[in-house]
């Protein structure tokens, strides 16, 4: 939301001073980002082509520039790769389906309760991310209310469970990243001048046509920002899979985590991290190009 506003108004207020001051202002923060973001990423690139020291202990690696690490890493976790992207896509689409009407209702149909409702949208996310995820485990579990209700309605059989499944993982992900979708959508819907909707109405467009030809195109920057802000953390997430899933629903994040901590195989973990990042950056770039919004950066 913030980037969009910033981008939209960036051009208008520019006093444009020159000199050494801006560099002094930038220095501490950019140094920090360079030292603790850029350098680690470069170091990660180096790590990803290391191989174990022959006859060395666990965790000892030597730089051999072995690019085949990437192929090995990919082949070893193809399924998790696919799952990360499928689950993240599903969660993003579900979040969009849930958030759009919600953001629309708050932007156009809430009157003086607008700010209050906006707070309500964000409020659930002040309860710790981990606690929320565990709460879903309880809700979807045997002692929750969902399973007995669905069984009573004969929607699921008496043996079917909902926890420890792909369904639970996607549900958790959808829920956990929802504000990242709702807030940008709200920001772009809220900026639509209601008179454009009236004009469309005056030109004999019905509600559906107005939505399709006016509201939706005008809210596209929000849709783009929201899908990106939801998809990126969802694709890299492993908490939902760890708490709500089973061994057959592990995602790439779980593999990176276990390669790092349990197997102590840093090169593979690094190669996987790099591939995840590259895949996400490529997808994001293509998506931004296709949707024709450069407002994000």
């Amino acid at each position, binding site marked *: 939301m913030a980037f969009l506003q910033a981008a939209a108004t960036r051009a208008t207020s520019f006093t444009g001073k020159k000199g050494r001051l801006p560099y002094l202002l930038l220095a501490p923060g950019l140094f920090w980002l360079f030292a603790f973001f850029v350098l680690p990423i470069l170091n990660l690139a180096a790590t990803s082509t290391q191989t174990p020291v022959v006859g060395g202990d666990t965790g000892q690696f030597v730089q051999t520039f072995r690019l085949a690490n990437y192929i090995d890493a990919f082949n070893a976790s193809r399924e998790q790769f696919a799952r990360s992207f499928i689950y993240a896509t599903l969660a993003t689409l579900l979040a969009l389906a849930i958030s759009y009407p919600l953001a629309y209702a708050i932007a156009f149909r809430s009157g003086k309760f607008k700010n209050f409702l906006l707070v309500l949208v964000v409020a659930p996310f002040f*309860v710790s991310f981990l606690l929320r995820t565990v*709460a879903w485990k309880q809700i979807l579990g045997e002692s929750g209310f969902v399973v007995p209700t669905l069984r009573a309605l004969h929607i699921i059989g008496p043996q079917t469970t909902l926890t420890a499944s792909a369904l639970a993982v996607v549900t958790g992900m959808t829920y956990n990243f929802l504000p990242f979708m709702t807030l940008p959508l709200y920001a772009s819907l809220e900026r639509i001048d209601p008179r454009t909707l009236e004009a469309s109405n005056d030109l004999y467009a019905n509600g559906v046509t107005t939505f399709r030809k006016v509201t939706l195109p005008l809210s596209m920057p929000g849709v783009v920002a929201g899908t990106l802000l939801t998809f990126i953390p969802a694709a890299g997430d492993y908490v939902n899979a760890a708490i709500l899933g089973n061994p057959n629903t592990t995602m790439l994040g779980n593999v990176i985590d276990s390669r790092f901590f349990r197997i102590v195989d840093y090169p593979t973990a690094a190669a996987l991290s790099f591939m995840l990042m590259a895949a*996400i*950056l490529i997808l*994001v770039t293509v998506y931004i190009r296709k949707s024709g919004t450069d407002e994000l*950066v």
Partner: protein
Amino acid sequence: MNQAPIPTLPLGRRISRWFGRNIIRIYAVFGFTYLFIPVLYTFAFSFNNAGKSNLTWRGFTWSNWTNPCGAPEVCSALGNSIKIGLIATTVATIMGTLIAFAIGRHRFRGRTTTNLLIFLPMATPEVVLGASLLAMFLAFRINPGFWPTVIAHVMFSISFVVVTVKARIASLDPRLEQAAMDLYANEMETFKRVTLPLVMPGIAGAALLAFSLSFDDFIITNFNSGTLVTFPKFVYISAARGIPAQANVIGSSMFFLALFIVIAGQLVNRKKVR
């Protein structure tokens, strides 16, 4: 504008109008229910007479609320999270605000690179941020723990501070500063007495955002904290063998505290606007 359906309108049009106007509200009610179910669960189970496992309801008790530190480690984990959050928020808010002023108020070479460097950490999955930082710490033989976690939290918070403060700076009316200059305030005075107070709500919002990101972070923390236990890490570790109800007490308290801060902030803002 009065949009009441005209009686002669065909039924289809009337239904679609009703659709446009009310289904969205019904949907919103469902949406909010969905949003609040886990919150209600967390809150309700903070009153559970749980004992070891807080998975099933075993009767009502106040004891978790009267004794929130009753479960081992829960309060030390909370303390660690608050300490890390406060330090990281302070550093990230200062650095991010300085960058936001540079971008919002100055022209300089390397703007595009700066913007990219701000954007990339937000577009990088947490697992990559966490893993890469840990790999570097290990390469330099720095043991993960409290300070590496603080460093990591500052790193991922800076970008969010920058975008939040930058948005506020961009929305300022430049005429206010011009007016101050016209009234013979020099650049420093204008900044201190006009610009900074106007940007302050943005900085406060950014600090709140940074704190909540830091407080709630699990993935990056898990990579860089070593044996140090933060609150999210405590929940994650105890998820396997049952989370004590005290964790729900802390989660619910954070919820009410944050809600209070946000609503109070809005009320203060509204007063100022008037």
